[in-house]
């Protein structure tokens, strides 16, 4: 029995994970959440921006990791469009433009935002550091056209925007090390204010930058997306995802505890 428990068939674990993912996704259970300080700071910063100000949204994740950053992107875009804050979309990931462009179009349509006046999507250019540094001098020197091929100087929203001096905030939605690059090259060199929304696995890396104030705010994984949705009073994909993640976490903790109990009993018997 103990041997069986210690060497549990992994297919059983796979089935348990599948059940724990599928049920909360199909039957939404609303768990209580409280808003953390970093997410509140980001919300407050955008909330206090006057209409007509511009923020830059960097979609620095790929299709493989979109489950966590995408709800954050949706929540922030809704907030900006409702506030009249303009959004410039950009990505440092080659496989992201189609998804990011589609997402911006979808949220804009839901909020009656107009392309070229309320938001634009610049797309992707190779060379992350050169792109970050180049936009600090002149955005048009890096992106002569937007993603659709319209010349930057012909876009009404970009008439008075030359570089980071006219950008109130860069929000990096990241699944890798891009936030650190934005901090080192755009914040330190050009003084651009940076905030981040990151996947669960890189939350811990962000805390030194939060403490120094190099990050204005932070959305940590599903939790951050849920907190932002709570602040907007509009539960969405983040809330559903967090509830599912909750049950998976409980299952994982239960499995680890079970494995350790079996391990200790086995070790005691051997002694």
């Amino acid at each position, binding site marked *: 029995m103990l041997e069986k428990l210690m060497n549990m068939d992994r297919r059983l674990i796979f089935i348990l994970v599948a059940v724990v993912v599928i049920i909360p996704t199909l039957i939404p259970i609303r768990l209580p959440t409280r808003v953390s300080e970093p997410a509140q700071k980001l919300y407050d910063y955008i909330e206090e921006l006057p209409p007509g100000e511009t923020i830059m949204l960097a979609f620095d994740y790929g*299709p*493989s*990791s979109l489950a966590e950053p995408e709800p954050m992107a949706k929540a922030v875009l809704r907030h900006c469009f409702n506030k009249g804050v303009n959004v410039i979309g950009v990505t440092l990931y080659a496989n992201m433009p*189609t998804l990011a462009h589609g997402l911006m179009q979808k949220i804009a349509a839901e909020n009656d935002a107009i392309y070229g006046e309320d938001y634009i999507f610049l797309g992707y250019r*190779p060379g992350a550091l050169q792109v970050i540094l180049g936009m600090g001098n002149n955005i048009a020197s890096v992106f002569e056209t937007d993603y659709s091929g319209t010349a930057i100087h012909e876009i009404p929203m970009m008439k008075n925007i030359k570089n980071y001096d006219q950008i109130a905030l860069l929000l990096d939605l990241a699944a890798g090390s891009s936030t650190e690059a934005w901090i080192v090259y755009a914040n330190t060199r050009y003084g651009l204010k940076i905030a981040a929304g990151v996947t669960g696995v890189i939350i811990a*890396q962000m805390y*030194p930058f939060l403490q120094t104030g190099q990050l204005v705010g932070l959305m940590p994984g599903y939790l951050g997306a849920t907190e932002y949705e709570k602040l907007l009073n509009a539960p969405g994909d983040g809330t559903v995802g967090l509830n599912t993640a*909750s049950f998976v*976490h409980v299952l*994982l903790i239960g499995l680890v505890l079970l494995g350790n109990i079996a391990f200790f009993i086995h070790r005691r018997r051997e002694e």
Partner: protein
Amino acid sequence: MKRQGPLALCFLFGIALIFTQFSPHSVSQKLYEEVIDWGLIITPFALVLAVVTLIETHITRVRRRTEHWQYSLVVFVGMAVMVLIGIPFGPQNSIVEWLYNNVQVPMDATMFSLLAFFIASAAYRAFRARTFEATLLLVTAMIVMIGNVPVGDLAWNTVLSWIPLEDGASKARQWILDIPNLASRRGIILGVSLGVISQSIRIILGIERSYLGGGD
């Protein structure tokens, strides 16, 4: 000369760009902007190099009939389809978008989603409190995991309601992230940064030459 040229260029541009960081003079800033523009032009060539390397690698696999060489043919088919449609019609072409949304996105998401299943299985087998360090790691991971989801606080406030501390799970997680995590991360960042500075100086001065290839 094959090695002296790159070494001289590296020294020249390294010193010049360090200088531009400390000098606000217009000539210095113009030089900085110019070099950034050059960088933007040069960087896409890395993509060409990557494509050439990928093709060479897979041609070799097909030619030598190594294990699973058939998958290399799939690489060529995928690449040819995307290039033949993508280059003339652009990334917003409906066929390119369809292929991206219905082939690449689901496959990428599926590959990453499978991790959840393997992590659960691996955690069950490998996450054992065998030593003091392993126990410390295990306990810390459990606290951060349970504090990261609302069910942690829900359980704390329900089961441990006799403890005069509300939302204890998320507060414990926050303490770990704010104090031990921050201290260790900062130490790592400082160490890495000092390493980067010293390595950069070695490269600029031509002491470190491994980036040139050839083994020294």
